[in-house]
């Protein structure tokens, strides 16, 4: 049973436009959400996170929105750049601290075309 779902396996956008990557979750106990970016032959790298007490977190070109009632979050990249082309994983956790663990989605392959 997939608790974190990324229903779009791939997304293609033009350079300079907005990229919107979506993520849905089913576990109402999740209270912390993260996005990771992964290039081929590399491990995932942390991008941005959001706590359940917020509905938006922004870091430069990257903004994450959280809609708790809909159990939905999204990552916006504006403007998109060719170097943003990668697989993006959504992840969620139930808590913080030593028993903490992440549940990942399957990822969305973003391609930004020049």
């Amino acid at each position, binding site marked *: 049973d*997939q608790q*974190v779902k990324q229903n779009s396996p791939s997304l293609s956008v033009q350079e300079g436009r907005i990229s919107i990557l979506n993520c849905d979750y089913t576990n109402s106990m999740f209270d*912390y959400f*993260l996005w*990771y970016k992964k290039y081929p*032959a*590399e*491990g*995932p*790298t*942390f*991008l941005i*996170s959001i706590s359940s007490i917020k509905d938006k977190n922004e870091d430069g070109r990257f903004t994450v929105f959280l809609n708790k009632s809909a159990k939905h979050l999204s990552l916006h990249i504006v403007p998109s750049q060719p170097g943003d082309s990668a697989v993006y*994983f959504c*992840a969620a*956790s139930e*808590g*913080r*601290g*030593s028993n*903490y*663990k*992440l*549940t*990942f*989605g*399957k*990822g969305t392959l973003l391609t930004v075309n020049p």
Partner: protein
Amino acid sequence: SAVISQKPSRDICQRGTSLTIQCQVDSQVTMMFWYRQQPGQSLTLIATANQGSEATYESGFVIDKFPISRPNLTFSTLTVSNMSPEDSSIYLCSVGVAGTGQGYTFGSGTRLTVV
């Protein structure tokens, strides 16, 4: 954030053999995590490795198949034992405690192909 050196980066192994994957961290960390990413699937946590105690395995993973060592605060190994083609995956180690806003740091992964 911590820097992780993971090796081997890839390997092709015969079924029935075992492979040990190593992760070296450039700083002392309490917890290390081992993940598996099967083709087309999400990253799945195999186990959590604490120094000085036995690893804690997630549902569906057992110590006999995936023995883990954690001899000190900067190093861990994961062994994939008695391999079959179904074990072909990317294996990743990770450190960090999320909830701090810093997220986890991952190694570059080991791409394992079992033939």
